[in-house]
């Protein structure tokens, strides 16, 4: 691959668009009196794959929503390519795609139309061009046979793949995945991990993946963060993660099932 410059070559066209970086500066988010994110500072470099791990309820989805401007910070700032993510015009300037945890497919549209909607609304191609892009994305995710189905006719794993395909046709500069491999079988999980890595290698898309999938994180992550109780407990490369001695991190990555001293009976340690 000759691509060595910091530029995104879109998977479906030959337009060159610069990859974008994401910065979280002292980001805090509360719902009422409940603090979900506490002073998170983090920088994701252009073209990097950043994997965010953490127990459920630790605020990972909320963090992703701040990057696309669906949630607004209580304090602190999120910028994408230097532009404030809370500003509505940012998503007009930067193509961002978020693969929602639950898919968020348009239930009234067929799979094909779900994928085509973005291209049609932004008039990015004629119907023949749209057809080509949509079928290509469906093919990558082995969904050709589902094109005419409706979301209600799909299994959980298929919905997830359609959601990923729908993000792919957007040819994003910034790709955010919220638990892309949960609900998928191991082979499809590996496929998704390969797709994420391929997009990054060939097209230099900045990628943030929220995932519990240890294999995915250690294999394709350039850097990994672990969010616990609204704070970044760990931030580093996969190698650094493997060597981490922090008991909480170790327990999160390799939980031992201990029937003599089950977790749910252990005394809560004040954190």
């Amino acid at each position, binding site marked *: 691959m000759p691509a060595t410059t910091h530029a995104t070559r879109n998977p479906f066209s030959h337009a060159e668009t610069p990859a974008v970086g994401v910065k979280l500066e002292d980001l805090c988010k509360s719902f009422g009196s409940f603090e979900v994110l506490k002073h998170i500072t983090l920088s994701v470099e252009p073209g990097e794959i950043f994997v965010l791990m953490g127990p459920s309820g630790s605020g990972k989805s909320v963090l992703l929503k701040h990057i696309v401007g*669906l949630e607004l910070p209580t304090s602190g700032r999120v910028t994408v390519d230097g532009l404030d993510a809370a500003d509505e015009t940012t998503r007009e300037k930067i193509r961002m795609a978020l693969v929602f945890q*639950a898919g968020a*497919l*348009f*239930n*009234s549209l067929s799979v094909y139309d779900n994928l085509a*909607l973005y291209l049609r609304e*932004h008039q990015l191609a004629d119907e023949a061009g749209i057809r080509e892009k949509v079928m290509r994305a469906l093919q990558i995710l082995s969904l050709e046979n589902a094109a005419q189905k409706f979301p209600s006719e799909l299994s959980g794993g298929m919905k997830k793949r359609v959601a990923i395909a729908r993000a792919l046709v*957007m040819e994003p500069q910034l790709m955010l995945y919220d638990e892309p491999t949960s609900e998928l079988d191991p082979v499809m999980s590996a496929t998704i991990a390969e797709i994420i890595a391929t997009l990054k290698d060939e097209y230099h898309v900045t990628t943030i993946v929220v995932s519990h999938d240890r294999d995915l994180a250690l294999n394709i992550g350039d850097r990994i963060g672990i969010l616990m109780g609204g704070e970044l407990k760990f931030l580093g490369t996969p190698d650094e993660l493997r060597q981490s001695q922090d008991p909480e991190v170790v327990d999160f990555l390799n939980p031992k099932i201990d029937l003599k001293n089950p977790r749910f009976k252990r005394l809560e340690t004040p954190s």
Partner: protein
Amino acid sequence: MKQLNDILEGIGSTLLLLARAARYVGTLPRQFGRFVEQCYVIGYTTMPIVAVLSFFIGSVLALESGYAAENLGPKQFIGLLVGLSMARELGPMMTAVLLAGRVGSAITAELASMKVYQEVDALETMNIPPARILVLPRLAAILVMMPVLGIVADLVGWFGGAIIAKYTHFISIEPEAYFATMRQFMDFGDVGNGLFKGEIFGFVVVLVCCNIGLSTRGGPREIGASVTKAVVTSLILILVLDFIVSKALMK
């Protein structure tokens, strides 16, 4: 205090939604398909019930005024009475009430479910404003369909009255006499007045129902709550607006 706050917030967000939808009026030709679909939905779900209800309202008006006219005077004025009441008041108002129940509730349910299941969030991240593709086609459709529904309501109501006036033994006036008084003392202004009112009611109902749907927060349970709120708010607004607009038009 909290209720007052909610009301003000509701008014504010409704106007904001209207302003947002208005920004995309230029995209309407491209959205012709969606517009036609919404016209069809509104017409298909509301037309039959509007016709049935108007028929009975016209009938009852004729019946009651015929009963009263036994002591009061010339019976052919029943035609004028039914004609005016239908055109100026009951036609637009009952059409709007049915619209709120059939179309408004469905709009709120659909948009609330899209909101709760994050479809609206997905649209926003795709930089496709919900006001453009979800709200604007519906507003345009109601502006076109409401006069159609209003005219159907008027015509069916008038004919319902005419049939009752002919076949009720204590009235029994011929349709010619019934329609003659209408033609003599009513003009297109009366019909236009009613259609204008209907246009306002319909537009407000659809706008408010869109806004309440899109403002839904929380889980699936909130969808039902939003639908109830949308229908109740619509009915109150129809009655309040009916008074205000009627008063303003009488000057």
